[in-house]
């Protein structure tokens, strides 16, 4: 429960919530959040890649790295301020090096939704695994509904043909080209985590 990720965007802050059938994106405004939903039914692919956030690194270098030069001063108070800025600068750059900026692009019905996150690799891997599992589970559920609907429609058509209401016999059922993925039972252990990025 709770917020699943925070978007590392320049101009607007975005948070994301992973639901059973969609990914909810909240774009922060002053007194309300704009809600966008990425439904899982027609998701075609989820692509992710990582790079170093050069923009943020340079901005941090400018605002925290430059004042860190105060340590060169002879005044002890100014030196302490410089040390503080230096520590902040090093902590930020270390975080960017360790986590990196990951872009996740979700393609649904030909449209792309891209989110940018700065997350620890372990947390990112868990988020992506949950996202993959949620999409696959929802699509498998919908595929089963499709099968059930087709079966009921064939039976209804066959009943109408037998009772003389339909002029033509119902079409023969077509075998699915690939077996549908089996849903894991509720008590089964979670799937192994995905590989590192």
């Amino acid at each position, binding site marked *: 429960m709770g917020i699943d990720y925070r978007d590392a965007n320049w101009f607007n802050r975005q948070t994301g919530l992973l639901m059973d059938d969609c990914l909810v994106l909240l774009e922060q405004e002053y007194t309300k959040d*704009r809600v966008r939903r990425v439904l899982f039914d*027609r998701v*075609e692919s989820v692509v992710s*890649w990582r790079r170093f956030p050069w923009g943020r690194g340079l901005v941090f270098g400018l605002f925290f790295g430059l004042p860190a030069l105060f340590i060169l001063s002879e005044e002890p108070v100014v030196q302490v301020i410089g040390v503080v800025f230096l520590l902040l600068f090093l902590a930020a750059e270390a975080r960017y090096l360790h986590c990196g900026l990951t872009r996740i692009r979700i393609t649904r*019905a030909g449209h792309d939704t891209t989110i940018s996150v700065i997350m620890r690799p372990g947390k990112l891997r868990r988020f992506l695994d949950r996202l993959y599992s949620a999409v696959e589970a929802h699509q498998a559920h919908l*595929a089963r509904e499709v099968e059930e609907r087709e079966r009921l*429609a064939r039976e209804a058509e066959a009943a109408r043909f037998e009772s003389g209401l339909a002029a033509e016999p119902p079409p023969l059922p077509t075998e699915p080209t690939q077996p549908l993925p089996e849903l894991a039972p509720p008590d089964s252990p979670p799937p192994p985590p995905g590989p590192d990025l």
Partner: protein
Amino acid sequence: MPDVTQVTQVTQFRCPKCFVMLEPMGGESTRCPTCGWAGRARLFRPVEPFVERAQDALPDDATCIHHPSKQAVAICEGTGDYICSLCAIELDGKTYSAQYLDRAGKDKLAAAFDRDLPRPDRAMGTYLAGAFLLSCFGVVLIPFAIHQFIKALRLHKTNDLYRRVRSRTSIVLGGLVLFAIIGLMAVGAVAILMDID
């Protein structure tokens, strides 16, 4: 025979950099031979939406009130009339006719497609910060902050999304801060009055 949905298997995805179609390399990172982009991709089986054609009504079938030649498949929750699949719209698990939603049920339609999530907790924080910074002049903002606090509590009960974004604990803590600031202002006012006397 109603139309059937399609379950397709996606086998390729577009490179985010040069838009060349690529195939994922199993669980490993995929590299684009054209631009050198590297990342991971997971492909899914999107389910196309189900579109049911309205069937012609047989002599013994119930007919749609708006399309007398079409078979009725549902009952409108708003008017109680029989409606066909052309008219039926499902919102929050209930079926309404498009004509009802266009007239008397416009608020239901607006609520179903609600694209904003109110954030009274954020507004309350803004009023509190203003009240704190403006000190004695900020007392006029306190009633607005109390109003937003009550709104936040009500929204937490009714809105699932808001409950996920903001826990009850955080709202109550915000309320404690609000009443602490009110208490400080009251103590300050009493001290000023006693000093004047």
